[in-house]
């Protein structure tokens, strides 16, 4: 076997994760229609060759439904992570750059958001926005920018006081250019890693509030919906309804985690030799 170092292995692993996730997303989007098909001649079938994840009480193919549900989750995670990362970036920057009052306001807001249990705030916002895909997206984005914003704020505050940025100013470089040139290599890895690591949060939260009935609508093939429906059938022994979608959800979350770790390792020059 060819020997590879840890860095190469991580890059390989991250690439494989990315391909798998992309495959699930695209496949799910293509079988979305099939996931809604009901056929009462095949209802409540346990896993078999034809239906590897079995079928449910309306005769829907659970494999197709799970893939479609994961696809919805991943797309939702993508939009949510992007939204909250953008909010985090601007809030963090504002806190660090716009002076003491802005800093106090943003930091206070962060403390406030972090002080309230996520799930409660999430349900409130999602409900107020009319539930559904966008309700969930707005709910999760509004509650998940805080830790990344705090990270960016701290980093920018520290960088602003750094000798090398002051020296750049004395060497006659403009403020904006100096900030771009000197801060980007510090902020970008943090930012991208934070963004990728937001995915699993977003996906799990989507599943949980949908499970509780405040997220996506019940006819959609979403993991939360599948899991909450399956609860009713667990007592009658239809274990496959919960187990396979649940395991795959955890799998997707793990893949994102690996991807995030890989990205961090690739982008951080201080860890370049690992």
């Amino acid at each position: 076997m060819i020997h590879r170092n840890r860095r190469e292995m991580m890059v390989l692993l991250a690439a494989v994760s990315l391909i798998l996730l992309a495959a699930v997303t695209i496949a799910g989007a293509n079988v979305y229609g099939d996931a809604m098909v009901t056929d009462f001649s095949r209802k409540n079938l346990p896993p078999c060759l034809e239906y590897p994840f079995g079928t449910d009480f309306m005769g829907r193919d659970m494999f197709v439904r799970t893939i479609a549900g994961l696809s919805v989750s991943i797309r939702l995670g993508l939009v949510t992570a992007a939204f909250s990362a953008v909010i985090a970036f601007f809030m963090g920057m504002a806190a660090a750059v716009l002076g003491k009052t802005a800093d106090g306001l943003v930091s206070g807001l962060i403390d406030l958001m972090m002080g309230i249990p996520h799930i409660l705030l999430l349900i409130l916002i999602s409900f107020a926005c009319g539930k559904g895909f966008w309700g969930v997206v707005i709910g999760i984005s509004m509650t998940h920018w805080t830790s990344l914003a705090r990270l960016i704020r701290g980093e920018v505050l520290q960088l602003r006081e750094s000798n090398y940025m002051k020296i750049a100013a004395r060497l006659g470089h403009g403020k904006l250019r100096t900030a771009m040139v000197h801060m980007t290599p510090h902020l970008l890895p943090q930012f991208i890693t934070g963004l990728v690591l937001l995915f699993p949060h977003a996906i799990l939260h989507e599943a949980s509030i949908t499970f509780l009935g405040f997220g996506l609508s019940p006819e959609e093939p979403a993991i939360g919906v599948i899991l909450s429906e399956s609860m009713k059938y667990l007592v009658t022994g239809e274990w496959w309804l919960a187990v396979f979608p649940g395991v795959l959800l955890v799998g997707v979350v793990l893949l994102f985690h690996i991807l995030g770790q890989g990205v961090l390792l690739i982008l951080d020059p201080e860890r370049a030799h690992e």
Partner: protein
Amino acid sequence: MKLEARNITFQYDNGNRQILNRANLTIESHERVGLSAPSGFGKTTFCKILGGYEKPDQGEVLLDGKPLDVYGPYCPVQMIWQHPELSVNPRRKMKTVLAEGNQIPERIIRGLGIEKDWENRYPGELSGGELQRFCIARALGEGTRFLLADEITAMLDLITQSQIWNFLLQEVKEREIGLLVVSHSDGLLKKVCTRTEYLQKP
């Protein structure tokens, strides 16, 4: 040219004691002035004020009778810091340090003993002495008229010290750059400077 500090009084914003009290200093272009004082007497602070990093609470810094700001974006008074590892961005390659200076000629880079392949490394991959050479080169751009050297060789071995100082002396003499040397080492000051000043206790 003449760099003048008049009645500089300074205290950091964090409410600590007063660092400088009515400090005065004049350096001519052809001069190399040593500055010595025990720890905590404000040598670095004085350099920061002379280099425009800090504004004094009272007093003024004048270059040929005019404040530093009027000389455009590139400050003609450049400071070399004591800690090179804090003076370069750890996430940018060393060649960006040289690019940041104002037209650094190849002569200076080679004269300081900077090797070509160092330029493609990150700061973490060089030693303190190697980093300091980059910082010195960066401060020697075309527009530099005065150089403030704040303990720039304190962490180096004697051979490297003499190598760097030999080059620096030759360079400042040639270009008529005024030099302020801060050091605890009287031997160094005697060797390098035309005269030595002592900061008084505030």
